[in-house]
């Protein structure tokens, strides 16, 4: 009988669930908003992933919880930090990765990854919304756009504006004044993406970024951000279809390993 293992990544904004079969294949995914109740959200993400895999929750032999809300995942077997899981997940998909840039809903991380996918070092910004997904969320709100639109529109930019405020709140005011000046929407958007990229670079400098870089987290789904980051880093980035699930994938790999040991 096939053995299954699960990883659940309870992020501050969104919670992700992944089911692996014993051939290291992803067979189910779940993505829900975290909201106020992390425990419920992780259950829902897990259930969604199980449904997607077409299996029974009982078939899952081992579940690893990760992410900022990992200790609230009550049904899991163990918890591992999101840093370790992101490194593991990124290494799984891009084995040559040495640096992971993870831009999530409320934080940005830079992780230096060793040869075996272990964490060599990391830096994290989780105190200030500037430079995180939240910045884009706020902007989308002001501009009355959906998050999915930001990337494609920004890619049309010809002359990106310069957002001088680092603070998200003041940047919002700046965006409004650019709108009042009738600047093009795409130029404003790209300006914001560049502002985030600049912050990300200065954070990442502290762990070093000379070798293969992988961009993960929900914000990596935004194509405009990928372009802005590549320009700022002056090097190409790996981005996977699964990038928002990388943490959950890492957790699921650990779960699979532990399940194998237990068996």
């Amino acid at each position: 009988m096939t053995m299954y293992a699960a990883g659940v990544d309870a992020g501050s904004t969104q919670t992700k669930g992944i089911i692996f079969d014993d051939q290291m294949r992803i067979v189910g995914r779940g993505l829900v908003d975290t909201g106020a109740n992390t425990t419920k959200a992780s259950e829902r993400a897990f259930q969604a992933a199980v449904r997607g895999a077409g299996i029974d929750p009982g078939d899952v032999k081992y579940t690893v919880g990760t992410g900022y809300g990992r200790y609230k995942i009550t049904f899991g077997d163990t918890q591992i930090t999101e840093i370790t899981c992101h490194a593991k997940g990124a290494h799984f998909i891009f084995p040559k990765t040495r640096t992971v840039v993870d831009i999530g809903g409320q934080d940005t991380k830079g992780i230096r990854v060793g040869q075996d996918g272990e964490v060599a070092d990391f830096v994290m910004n989780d105190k200030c919304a500037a430079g995180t997904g939240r910045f884009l969320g706020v902007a989308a709100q002001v501009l009355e756009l959906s998050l999915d639109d930001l990337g494609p529109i920004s890619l049309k930019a010809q002359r990106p504006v310069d957002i001088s405020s680092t603070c998200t709140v003041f940047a919002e005011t700046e965006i409004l004044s650019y709108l009042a000046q009738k600047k093009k929407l795409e130029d404003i958007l790209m300006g914001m993406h560049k502002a985030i990229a600049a912050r990300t670079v200065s954070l990442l400098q502290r762990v070093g970024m000379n070798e293969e870089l992988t961009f993960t987290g929900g914000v990596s789904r935004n194509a405009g951000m990928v372009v802005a980051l590549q320009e700022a880093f002056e090097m190409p980035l790996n981005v996977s279809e699964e990038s928002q699930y990388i943490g959950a994938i890492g957790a699921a790999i650990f779960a699979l390993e532990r399940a194998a040991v237990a068996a």
Partner: protein
Amino acid sequence: MSEQTAAQVAVNGAQPSAMRAKAKTLVKNAFGEAWKAKEAGRKICYCFVLGPAELLRCFDMYLIYPEISSAQMAAKKTSLPYIQKAEDYGYSADTCSYVTADVGLYLSGNQHPLGHVPPPDLVINDTLCNTYYKWTEVIHDFWKCPVFSIDHPVRLKRDEKYPYDIEETYQQDKQYVVKQLLELIAECEKLTGIKFDPERFRKNLEFGNQMSALWCEIIDKTRNAPTPFDAVLDGYGYIAGMNTHKGTAEGVAYLEAVKTELDQRIVKGTGAVAEERFRLLWMSAPCYPYFRKIPEMFHQRGATFVYTPQFMQGTRGTYRSKMYDLERPLESYAESMLDYFHGRNPRQAPQWSMGWWGGKDDIRNHLDLMRRFNADGIVFHAIKSCRLNSGGFADLREHLSREGVPILMLESDIADPRFFSEAQVKNRIEAFMEGLEERKYYRARAAV
């Protein structure tokens, strides 16, 4: 009382070292007796931990170590109000918090948690750290006392050949230090009215040599598995006990007691933690405001510290490879100050490794340390205050991680509790330990 009980609480089922508690008494006495000494007419000399204690003791001077004083404030969780006083006075939060804590002490009428500290009759600094010079100037500013600097030049270990005669430079530098020591002796004679007694100096150096021999044996005991003491939690206690009594019979007695205790622990198989799973090197000084907390976060996961270069750097002269030559005391005294900094050393002893002048040797030395102490990884404790000790860590990490050494970088401060973020430190330690576990897992799997 509370500290006694705290010291006796077993971490993770392990038995704490009794000599760590004993060190506290020694340090406390060293401070407590200061006023008595002053009243008895002895001169008070502020000197840094690597200062020429053995020499100064020849003049019956009572030694006060500003660094130990600040560290004690921090360890007693009382440093913050002192530091803030200094900041209110104008000092920046970006400078060495040992200095700001000390300034706070002066601004508080010299009321130290361990007792009332008398003002200095003389301050002596050396060149271990450039901040010492500024610190000395600060002390001078406050107390207008005479100041003496022993300048021992720092020479880069060049990866390339020297285009001049480095040996000759060394000899000249040595003479330069010797001459300064002679000036110091004259100054001390003038200040205390006591004539320099070479015999007494020799005697102090002899105590120093005995302490060196003992200390080298002690620090090698962590090569045992399990290690009988934790290099941070216990080790820094021993250092404090020893440094306050350098060149004295008490110092020798104390180290003998430490050694005896450790031998007994080894025989009984008592480790620093109940179950030793990982052995780590700790680079630079501890975070004194959370002195117990950080090592205990490691202990909880079965990791313990087996070495810190401060064992050597923090105890100048107290190492076997450099016993004082009693036939030429001043010269060999000068050598002990100079050698650590001098690029002429073909290859410094690996134990010294701090990484700020050795070129590529710094990397090799760290790898040697890993082997010598059979360690699983290195923890670099980047101290916000201390550029001297922390300045090279990021670079060492770059090089060492290329060599496959698991490395953790922690950031906090030596005396300023505001720079310790528990969540952040915990997060880092957790991720690091997960990595070590994973490595162990893969190694075990590969071995099968």
